[in-house]
Every structure is written in structure tokens, then in C-alpha cells.
């Protein structure tokens, strides 16, 4: 129907959706790694009785329907919401139907997928190794970057891949919060839904095939690399 130029069999609009999805997933992954690392560390090490409460809160997005998350976020980030309303009063724009809005949604939605693998990896680290490093006068930062991270590389890799892939596969939160705006909130999953509803099956097929291929290749690469990374280091 549209006379838009095609590259590799996909139209400009479809590339726009793919680029937007990649941007959303990449930003979500980077932000979640930074946010999740201290949180996962605390969850893995803390004896606080708040640990269980925080663990339950972090895991909520695993159980909640995405529509619930999307609905609450729409209320909070929209023009009448606590966050959106405050922004409007400051002369800024509310966050519903914007890229920032769906980025916040994605971060919340994928939070457990980043925290869980990191937490397991951190918990598996022998505290004596850290004590030894401390005795050798390694600073806290140094211990984290030279000891903790290398020892938990499998967990970090899992967190990165699963968070990225999970964000690419996100639909419900963005459907509630996004508003289907090209280049802003129309990610691939939304574009597919839109195409099927508009009876544009060819376009729906093309984008679905892209997602299917991406998901399979990602998981395949993940399992291949993971086997190598997770296996104990042996002298060659």
C-alpha cells in the first residue's frame, strides 16, 4: 500500500519501529544494570528483614499483568498524575505517550529480569575472597570491579541478554502507556498489533519474522556463550 522505499524488504516505517525498539531495549538494559547492581548486592548480602519485602516488590512485575503496570503508570505519569502533573506545573511536559514514559515502563517491567541473575551471581561469591581482597587493601570500588564483576560475569551476561530480549518482547505496558506514535512509542510489537488490526498482513508477517529471528538468534547465542562463560576456568 505505502509507496515508501524499502531496505532489505522492510519499509521506512518498519525500520523506524525496529530502531526505536533497539533504542528502548538498549537504554533499558544500561539503566537497569546500573540500578540493579547495588540492589542485587544488597539483596544478596543483607540480613535485614526488609530484604523479603524488597525482594517481593522487585519481583512484582513477574506476576502482575502488564496492563496493571501500564494502567498505574498512565495514572502517575499522565497530566493529572503525581509525576506528570508536577512536571506540567513546572512548565514541562507530562510523560504519558512519550518515549521517556515507555522507558520508565520498560525499566519497571524488566527490573526482576536484571536483579534476579545478578543477585544469584553475587550470592554465590565466597565472602572470604572479598575479605582477602580487603586485607590486600583493595578499596570497595576496586573489590567490586576487580573481584565481584569478573566472578559474576555469567550473571551479568544473563541479566544483559534477558533484560534486552524481554524489553524487545514487551507489549502490554507500552500498549497502555504509549499511544502508538511513530518514532516515539510505536515499537515493533505495537506495530505488529497495529498492522493486524488494520488488515495489513504482509507488514505484520515481515515484522513478526524479524522478531522471531531476533529472539531465536539471541537465545541461541546466549546459551552458546553462557556455557563457555559459566564453565569453570581451566588451564588450556
Amino acid at each position, binding site marked *: 500500500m505505502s509507496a515508501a522505499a524499502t531496505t532489505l524488504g522492510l519499509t521506512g516505517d518498519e525500520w523506524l519501529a525496529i530502531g526505536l525498539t533497539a533504542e528502548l531495549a538498549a537504554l533499558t538494559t544500561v539503566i537497569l544494570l546500573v540500578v540493579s547492581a547495588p540492589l542485587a548486592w544488597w539483596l544478596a548480602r543483607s540480613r535485614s528483614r526488609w530484604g523479603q519485602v524488597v525482594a517481593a516488590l522487585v519481583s512484582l512485575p513477574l506476576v502482575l499483568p502488564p496492563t496493571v503496570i501500564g494502567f498505574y503508570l498512565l495514572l502517575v505519569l499522565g497530566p493529572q498524575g503525581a509525576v506528570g502533573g508536577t512536571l506540567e506545573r513546572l512548565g514541562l511536559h507530562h510523560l504519558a505517550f512519550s518515549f521517556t514514559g515507555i522507558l520508565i515502563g520498560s525499566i519497571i517491567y524488566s527490573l526482576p529480569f536484571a536483579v534476579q541473575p545478578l543477585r544469584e551471581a553475587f550470592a554465590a561469591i565466597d565472602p572470604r575472597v572479598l575479605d582477602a581482597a580487603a586485607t590486600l587493601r583493595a578499596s570497595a570500588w576496586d573489590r567490586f570491579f576487580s573481584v565481584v564483576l569478573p566472578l559474576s560475569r555469567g550473571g551479568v551476561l544473563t541479566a544483559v541478554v534477558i533484560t534486552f530480549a524481554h524489553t524487545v518482547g514487551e507489549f502490554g505496558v507500552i500498549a497502555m502507556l504509549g*499511544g502508538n506514535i*511513530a518514532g516515539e512509542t510505536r515499537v515493533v510489537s505495537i506495530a505488529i498489533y497495529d498492522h*493486524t488490526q488494520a488488515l495489513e498482513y504482509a507488514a505484520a508477517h515481515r515484522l513478526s519474522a524479524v522478531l522471531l529471528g531476533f529472539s531465536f538468534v539471541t537465545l541461541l547465542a546466549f546459551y552458546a556463550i553462557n556455557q563457555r562463560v559459566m564453565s569453570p576456568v581451566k588451564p588450556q
Partner: protein
Amino acid sequence: MLRMVRFFAIAAVFVGLIAVARAETARVAAASDLKFAFDELKPVFERNHPPHRLELIMGSSGKFLQQIENGAPFDVFFSADVSMPRRLVNSGKAIAPVTPYAVGRIVLWSTRVDASKLTLNDLARPEFRKVAIASPEHAPYGARAKEALKAAGVWTAVESRLVLGETISHAAQLVDMQAADVGVIALSLALSEPLRRKGGHALIPDTLHQPLEQAWVITHHGRHNVAARAFTAFMGTTQARQVMRRYGFLLPGEKTE
């Protein structure tokens, strides 16, 4: 005093420039019965009105109403009814006037059987295991379909076999994929190139339901958008009206034959 005047004059020009510079793309939220007509009108409009561009977003009128009330950045809303644009004007989310642009019709459509021979009363027959309509809750075409089924006296017979599409084009998709045996869809969709090839349709008498009068409104967000104004004006031209007529819409100022 003079300095004040000059300041305001400069400010006005500046605001005007921003409006002109920013308003070359209009985001049009349009009811999905307009899908094929607007796909055809978009390139014509863009060719006739450079540098204006349209970004079409198709969906159910009810969803657009909710999204615009929550601050969605659409510039103009082409609803499948008149009451939703009015509600937006009343709540200050859209700018009067609410302008009628077409009257739609509903039809029976099927890719399984020849629907051109069917009437609503036939839907009571058990061979139609699933009947697709748009959601009466948030799609005006669904609400009118429900009224027509009730008026024809088959609602109770059909109700348990209904499948609801989110939009009228979703209802058409359910029939197209034969997830439903027959559906009540928009005439504008049944007359479209891809659907016309797949099945016949039977017009549902418009005496069985409230008229499907459809109106557009400029949203508060789009109040300075020049492209949105240009597009709504374009909808009144002979060229646009001819396209709309081809999709079975009755236009303002015209009468049913």
C-alpha cells in the same frame, strides 16, 4: 508603552514562526473505518499541500477519547461518532467546533458464505457459530451493530456467539481470518480493494440503528497546528469528498437516495 507594544509584536511573530515551523506534520487520530479512505487521501493531501505531512494513527474512537483526555499528542481527532469529540470540547481537551464530515453505514460481511444474500435475521441460524462485531463499549460501529441486532430481534440468539473486535477493522480481520463466520463491519471497509475481493456484503437498513454520524475536532494539543487545519479544510474539497463517497460514506449536505 511603545516598548511594550514592540515587545509583544516581536513575541507574537516569534510564536507565530514557531507555530509555522513546528506545524508541518499533523498527527491524525482516526477511527479505523477510515483506514482505506485515509490511506488514499494522505498522499493526495501531501502532494497538494507541501510541506505539510500527515501521520495517521488508526484505532477505536473510544481509545482515542481516553488517550486524548490523558494528554496524548494528537492534533486532530476523526471520530466515528459525534459525542466523543463533543466530550473532549466540554472537558477542554479539544477546541470547538465539532464538525461532521461523514455518515457511515454497517454491513454484513463474510469470507465464508456469500453475505450479499444475508439479512440480520439469518444470524440466528446455528451455522454461524461466531459473529464478529466491534466492541459496543468503545467503538461506535460496535454500538450501532448491537442496536441493529436488537432491533432485528436476534440479539439474544446471537449474543453468546459474538466475538468482539477492538475496532471495526479488527472485527473485519476476525472475519477475514475466518475466526468468525460472519461479521457486522463498516461499509467503508467492505468496499475497500482488499476486502471487496474476498467477500460480498449486505447493507444493514439504517432504520435499525442510530445514524453513524461522524465528526472531527481539533485537539487542544493541535490548536496551533497548521497542517491539521489544512487537512480538515482539505476534507471539504470535492476531491476528498469523491474519495469518501467511493467508500460508501454519505457526506454532509447530501441525502440518501
